[in-house]
């Protein structure tokens, strides 16, 4: 838990998100402090991905209060977005663009220096694959590219949805190094909580915080 005086990077109070009549998130309360890693666990359909997508400002909350980096969502979502780096189930890259072109596109959208794209590629070990298209990369390499995309603008909050999926031992080292360098907060949805042993675990069940 964050200290009383610190402003949490993520704060949710009675967060609700529905899909039709079904409540994917049903009154979730949580705080994530700067420097903290929150490890979300739970079975399929527990609401982990929905929670990450709400925090990534991709889905609107339907009830309760949410803030990211001190900005209330959805009202001030645009102000919160520079603080967010999001890795989803898909790498979120264009298959017809090369790895480097994809990073350059996201780099321009995030207003980062062009040199950061090469740095990010090098950080995930893809410096020699920058001219390859995602389709020519292995599943694990595409996941590394997704990590580079999310890390490009050095966000204060990393939102990682099953980031170890498809990663081999070297890829996991890349992820470990990225998390070690990351000074901000992270929310990680995973089925491998032991791999994120340093984080605080929070279990979701049917859209609610368990226990």
């Amino acid at each position, binding site marked *: 838990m964050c200290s009383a005086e610190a402003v949490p990077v993520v704060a949710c109070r009675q967060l609700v998100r529905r899909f039709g009549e079904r409540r994917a998130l049903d009154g979730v309360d949580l705080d994530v402090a700067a420097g903290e890693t929150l490890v979300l666990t739970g079975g399929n359909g527990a609401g982990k991905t929905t929670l990450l997508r709400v925090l990534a400002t991709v889905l609107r909350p339907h009830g309760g209060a949410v803030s990211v980096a001190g900005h209330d969502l959805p009202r001030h979502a645009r102000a919160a977005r520079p603080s967010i780096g999001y890795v989803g189930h898909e790498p979120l*890259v264009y298959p017809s663009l090369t790895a480097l072109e994809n990073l350059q596109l996201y780099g321009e959208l995030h207003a980062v220096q062009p040199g950061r794209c090469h740095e990010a590629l090098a950080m995930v070990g893809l410096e020699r694959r920058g001219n390859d298209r995602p389709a020519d990369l292995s599943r694990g390499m595409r996941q590394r590219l997704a990590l580079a995309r999310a890390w490009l603008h050095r966000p204060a909050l990393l939102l990682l949805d099953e980031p170890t999926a498809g990663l081999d031992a070297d890829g996991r080292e890349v992820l470990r190094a990225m998390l070690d360098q990351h000074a901000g907060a992270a929310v990680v949805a995973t089925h491998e909580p032991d791999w994120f042993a340093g984080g605080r675990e929070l279990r979701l069940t049917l859209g609610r915080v368990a226990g």
Partner: protein
Amino acid sequence: MRAYRALLRKDLLLELRGRELVPAMLAFALGALLLVRFGLGGATQAGGTRAATGLLWVVVVFTSMLALVRSFAQEREHGIWDGILSAPIDRAAIWAARSTATLAFLIVTQAIALPLFWLFFLQDGNPPSLGVLVAALLLADLGVAMLGSLLAGLASQVHAREVLLPVLFLPFAVPLVTVAVRVSVGTISPQTGGSATLEGLGFLALYDTIFGLLGWALFEYVVED
């Protein structure tokens, strides 16, 4: 502007690499013109240049539909919306870039199809004014691109999008096409004054302005889940 430039460059690069839209639009436009020219032959000639000019606009509308139905296809099929929508940009820039790219695709297609249309259908009789026809085409293309990109963004968020988009688009396009046909056909008739032409072009410009403002203001909300 930074986001707009980056997204427009991306849209043009994707088409350059994939060659997905413009060849299909060209094939449809040329196929439709050939079909009518050689399939109906004499019947078209009997209809005169008025019928032929009307036919051109039918081809324009359905060619546009091809571009619009595939609009945002990659974002949808590869889940890229989440990446683009979580970027710190004015989401209207996504709409503006896509509108500009669609406009460019329409112009390229028509730059090839229009001379063939002229060759096939307007060799005999009194053709419409080329200047007015091109002006009407450009204004109509702009309206189609802006309205279509707004509706394509909306349709991309729902199921049965391929059905929904034409259902949404065609009713809104009716006034645009009606006036564009009237303007271009009107120039054939010697008794039609220049003021009617200007009035028609003015309507098209007004239509563009309205849907430009609506697209800019509403796109943020239509892509919101």
